């Protein structure tokens, strides 16, 4: 357990000092502040536009940060052989992966929280008060990002950062369209429906974490809106990290 914390601490330090992170974060801040302008040309719908663009921006930028940092996370360790230095110490592969996961998760979560603070300030400044409902959306975002980090880590155990990034983005789009897939086969035959259902349940459904659209209209999320996605993310991440460990072990041989 202590090993996981140690590795997490160091992964956090390594990732949080990465210059790319600062660049992306700066862009994110610029974007969040620019939503003020977009709001002002919306003919009186300022607060809504600012909220929508703010939440969308936080989402987009946290995905970008995760892709940039996550897809090279394990790859770098293999390339630079730092992985070997660590594994020659009394550390297991599982401890190593969990440490990397939690370290990166902490980095990205910190960025999300900072962006959220800016967003809340912008909404308040625009007269929208303290947007506490958006915090539920941010909570689910953090769990969606945890799942996405696991995906990126899995890919980074066997692909280059570029390939891993492409796969991750593809999975991101698929993850948001799974519901549409089921709609699409509504009027098809049983075989198509079966196949679609298999795909639907196996691939990660990222829409489950999306309550942005209702939260902006003042609709409170229910208990199950919050609990199920958190459970889903935790279980799915565990499976993905286990797969990543298997993938790493295979490469050692």
């Amino acid at each position: 357990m202590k090993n996981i914390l140690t590795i997490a601490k160091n992964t956090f330090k390594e990732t949080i000092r990465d210059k790319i992170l600062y660049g992306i974060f700066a862009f994110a801040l610029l974007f969040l502040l620019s939503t003020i302008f977009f709001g002002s040309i919306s003919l009186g719908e300022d607060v809504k536009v600012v909220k929508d663009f703010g939440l969308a921006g936080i989402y987009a930028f946290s995905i970008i940060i995760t892709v940039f940092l996550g897809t090279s996370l394990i790859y770098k360790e293999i390339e630079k052989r730092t992985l070997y230095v660590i594994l020659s110490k009394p550390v297991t592969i599982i401890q190593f992966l969990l440490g990397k996961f939690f370290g990166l998760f902490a980095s990205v979560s910190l960025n999300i929280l900072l962006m959220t603070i800016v967003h809340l300030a912008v909404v308040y400044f625009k007269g929208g008060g303290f947007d506490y409902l958006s915090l539920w959306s941010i909570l689910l975002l953090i769990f969606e990002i945890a799942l996405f980090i696991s995906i990126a880590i899995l890919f980074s155990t066997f692909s280059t950062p570029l390939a891993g990034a492409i796969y991750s983005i593809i999975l991101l789009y698929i993850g948001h369209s799974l519901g549409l897939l089921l709609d699409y086969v509504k009027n098809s035959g049983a075989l198509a429906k079966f196949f679609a259902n298999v795909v639907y349940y196996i691939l990660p459904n990222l829409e489950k974490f999306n309550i942005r659209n209702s939260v902006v209209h003042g609709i409170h999320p229910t208990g199950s809106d919050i609990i199920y996605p958190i459970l889903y993310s935790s279980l799915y991440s565990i499976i993905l990290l286990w797969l990543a460990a298997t993938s790493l072990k295979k490469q050692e041989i």
Partner: protein
Amino acid sequence: MINITKLSKTYSKDKIVEDLSLTINKGQIFGFLGPNGAGKTTTMKMLVGLSTPSCGIIEINNSSINKNKELIGYMPEDPYFYDHLTAKEFLTFMQELFKNKTKDIQNILKLVGLEKAMHQKIQEFSKGMKQRLGLAQAIINDPQYLFLDEPLDGLDPIGRREFKEIFLNLKKEGKTIFFNSHVLSDVEEICDQIGIINKGKLIYSGDVKTFCGKKSLEDAFVEKLINK
């Protein structure tokens, strides 16, 4: 004591290491030699538990590798580290992975000549400095057994002398050192025993002086390889 019995490693039909058997007594400096691609690094990886042997047994202190990680130190060939950490942060990181008590970081850095670079980011280190840090992290836990892959690579003559002194001192403390090298003059200077591997097979193991006879180690080595 390190006991290696019939160690083999095969990667999809390529026999990288074949039927290797060695015994290294405690408190010795053992030099593992061989031309490039002979299987030295693969052997060392198996010894420190980074690679699983295809067959054969490795025993350190009469038990298997994985139970012994607290007792060993490993320095990989051409070591790389985390660019954004300082030397101190990195060694602290390594230190925290051990349950047992470890040595003081400042002393270790002093020993390897990196005291001034304690708070410097690793990405600013020269090759020689990285080698020194590599040794530092290998001895941070005061290991009984040290496995070093080309430890003198990239060091200037002064650095090489300093490292060799460190090895001899460690030997005095009763540590066992197993290192890969192809710089034979260094091996000649500090090793008690050597092993020579060529194309995955062990072609000599034993006393250095006996092997050399009247020749230099380099001459004896080349002769052995050409003859075999």
